[in-house]
């Protein structure tokens, strides 16, 4: 870029085409349609290639952001994808679900003026462009080391470790409890936000690299980690945070009350929205309330809409405190999800056949900030309200499943059921066992799980090389 051009700062973020709300609320196809090559190039050209790029510092996997933006600006998509994939093995996924507004885009020098580069959209564009090419590039593979690593869990953490270690020359087997690889990416995040074909493509790429993928295998049940270690040199645990929490209020076991995991699994993993072609049934409810305010709650509420229900979010704080990505909140609002803020469920009310028919809630007001820094909701006496409904989805959080801890003697488990592991290396209290992702941090993000996987892979590789 010449000096002359640089003076003309372009602060206009290029919008990404989307399905209009009144159309998309009736289908499960992806909401965002992605940049065209022209839009991607225009947007990438806005980057001024800072000498000390502040965006990179805020990317959990330190992607060379100006590097790939420059390639895109030049129309060199092959070069761009190479820079991107050097640090991020799942760009098509991250381009869609990463909270960029909290990360790279937040520290872009244009952020103050509201013109931060749409890094996520360009990342997504590049990854999709590559997928459309007939053959994706296969990396040069080093000679085989003869060392074997077992990975527990086929989510983003496990898949990242698998990809890295096979490229270091080790033999890798991934053991996944469910019948599909991908973790939350396949059973939790809905099709309209992350098409499953994209996840499958990434999984197929790993298969092509030579990773052995074993589904229907529950480590701790089908085989313990110690038994696996008789055959493998190291184990990485990336089993996620898949244990759903309930409110523990009366009526929670009525028919029509779901955990978010159940609701989303029926739809995404089991493809219940295609019942009876797929055999797992889903109910067609008329009025659904989703309790919670995170990404998970938004996904449930927007899924309920698409199944034809009136859908509302019940959240005990206000809009400002919603932990979900702003973009997803806006999408939900546009599509017609009703939001009841400052509202806390007290009990579920059942009919004579054991089906939920209403929810009783209490109104809240915000008090002083609590430990999380957010203002604490305080109940308002006498403000009880009853909403009629025929389904409730509880989306208030998940924690790690205790199975691995219970079946692996000597593995140190923290207070919240998380496996204790070194932040920089993923090393656990047990020799030959590493861990990372949601099972260590509690429910977090895809990119953090990937980042943890990347660190652990490096540490495992060092260990294997020392043998």
């Amino acid at each position, binding site marked *: 870029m010449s000096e002359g051009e640089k003076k003309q700062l372009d602060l206009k973020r290029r919008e990404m085409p989307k399905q209009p709300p009144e159309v998309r609320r009736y289908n499960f196809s992806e909401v965002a349609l992605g940049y065209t090559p022209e839009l991607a190039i225009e947007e990438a050209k806005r980057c001024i290639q800072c000498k000390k790029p502040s965006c990179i510092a805020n990317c959990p996997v330190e992607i060379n952001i100006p590097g790939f933006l420059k390639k895109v600006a030049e129309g060199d998509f092959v070069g761009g994808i190479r820079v991107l994939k050097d640090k991020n093995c799942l760009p098509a996924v991250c381009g869609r679900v990463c909270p960029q507004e909290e990360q790279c885009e937040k520290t872009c020098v244009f952020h103050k003026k509201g013109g931060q580069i749409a890094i996520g959209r360009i990342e997504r564009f590049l990854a999709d462009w590559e997928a459309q090419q007939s053959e994706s590039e296969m990396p040069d593979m080093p000679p085989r080391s003869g060392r074997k690593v077992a990975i527990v869990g086929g989510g983003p953490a496990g898949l990242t470790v698998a990809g890295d270690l096979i490229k270091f020359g080790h033999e890798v087997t991934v053991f996944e*409890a*469910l*019948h599909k690889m991908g973790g939350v990416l396949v*059973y939790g995040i809905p099709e309209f936000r992350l098409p499953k074909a994209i996840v499958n493509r990434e999984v197929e790429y790993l298969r092509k690299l030579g990773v052995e993928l074993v*589904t*229907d*295998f*529950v480590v701790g*049940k*089908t*085989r313990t980690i110690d038994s696996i270690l008789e055959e493998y040199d190291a184990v990485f645990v990336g089993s996620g945070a*898949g*244990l*759903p929490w*309930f409110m*523990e209020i009366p009526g*929670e*076991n009525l*028919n*029509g009350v*779901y*955990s978010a*995991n*159940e609701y989303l*699994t*029926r739809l995404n993993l*089991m*493809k219940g929205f295609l*019942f*009876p*072609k*797929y*055999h*797992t*049934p*889903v*109910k067609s409810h008329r009025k659904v309330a989703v309790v919670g305010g995170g990404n998970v709650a938004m996904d449930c509420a927007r899924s309920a809409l698409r199944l034809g229900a009136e859908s509302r979010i019940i959240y005990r704080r206000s809009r400002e405190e919603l932990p979900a990505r702003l973009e997803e909140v806006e999408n939900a609002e546009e599509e017609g999800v009703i939001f009841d803020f400052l509202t806390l469920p007290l009990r579920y009310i059942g009919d004579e*056949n*054991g089906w939920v028919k209403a929810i009783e809630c209490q109104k809240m007001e915000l008090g002083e900030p609590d430990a999380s820094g957010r203002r604490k909701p305080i109940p308002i006496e006498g403000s009880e309200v009853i909403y009629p409904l025929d389904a409730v989805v509880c989306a208030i959080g998940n924690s790690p*499943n*205790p*199975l691995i801890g219970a079946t692996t003697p000597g593995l140190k488990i923290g207070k919240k059921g998380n496996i204790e592991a070194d932040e920089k290396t993923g090393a656990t209290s047990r020799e030959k066992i590493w861990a990372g992702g949601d099972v260590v941090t509690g429910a977090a993000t895809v990119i953090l799980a990937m980042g943890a996987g990347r660190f652990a892979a490096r540490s495992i590789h060092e260990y294997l090389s020392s043998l």
Partner: protein
Amino acid sequence: MFRVIASKMIVPNMHLLTLAAPAVAREAKPGQFVILRAEEEGERVPLSLSDWDAQSGTITVVFMSIGSTTGRLALLAPGASIPTVVGPLGNATEIENYGTVVCVCGCYGIGSIFPIARALKRKGNRIITIMEARSSYLFYWDERLEAISDKMIHITRDGSKGHRGHAGRLPEILRGLEEPVDRIIANGCTFLMKRTSDETRPLGIKTMVSLNPIMIDGTGMCGVCRVTVGSVTRFACVHGPDFDAHQVDWEELLQRRKTYMQEEVVPLRTSRCEERHLRSQEKSHE
């Protein structure tokens, strides 16, 4: 993929399926179950392990053909394959030397109680097996159970074998035994287990049941299998499936099992016209 080794209808509507699943066979213990999918588009359904052989790497399940998955499983011929067999899931049944154990079974529970009774026998218990069915032609595995039981008792609705009636006859049958009973284990349909529980509660005999709520993953991830036991919510797939029968909230379990009746049973058991009629009725109720 998991290969079908043997497949047979053992009594009307009750099927036996032997599958090659070496990893499951190696770890299986009495009282555990597997989750299967019959096809790529299939639902995940839990079935108890009725037998296994670690050496040949096979497992055997016995099931009643009642719905979409069991219907498909029933049609499989040896040599065919199914995409999912995962397990062994759930906790094993507690096997101790209790003294005299009564094993109450019916329906698919005749199959699933067999490995439990066998293990209890090996532990030195006296085994009294009580089998229940509508009619004598619905009994199977008589010889297998007889071989490990000290006493066999049959109950049939129509009186065609043993006592006439149902699990309601249990108190008098138990009273008629020449020895005190130290423990009762019941496997089979929910009604049989509930009735057994109702009948043994006043007798104060510890009774264990293998609960069968709806499940999806079987690993504690979805929570659909929740049951209330001793006023606490438990996930049957990871905290069970065995629970103290007298602590179980049976009404809730029966209720929750009906969740998908409308979706799963109605289309299978009725003509489409009836179904439409039902829907319009439902609408007019609103």
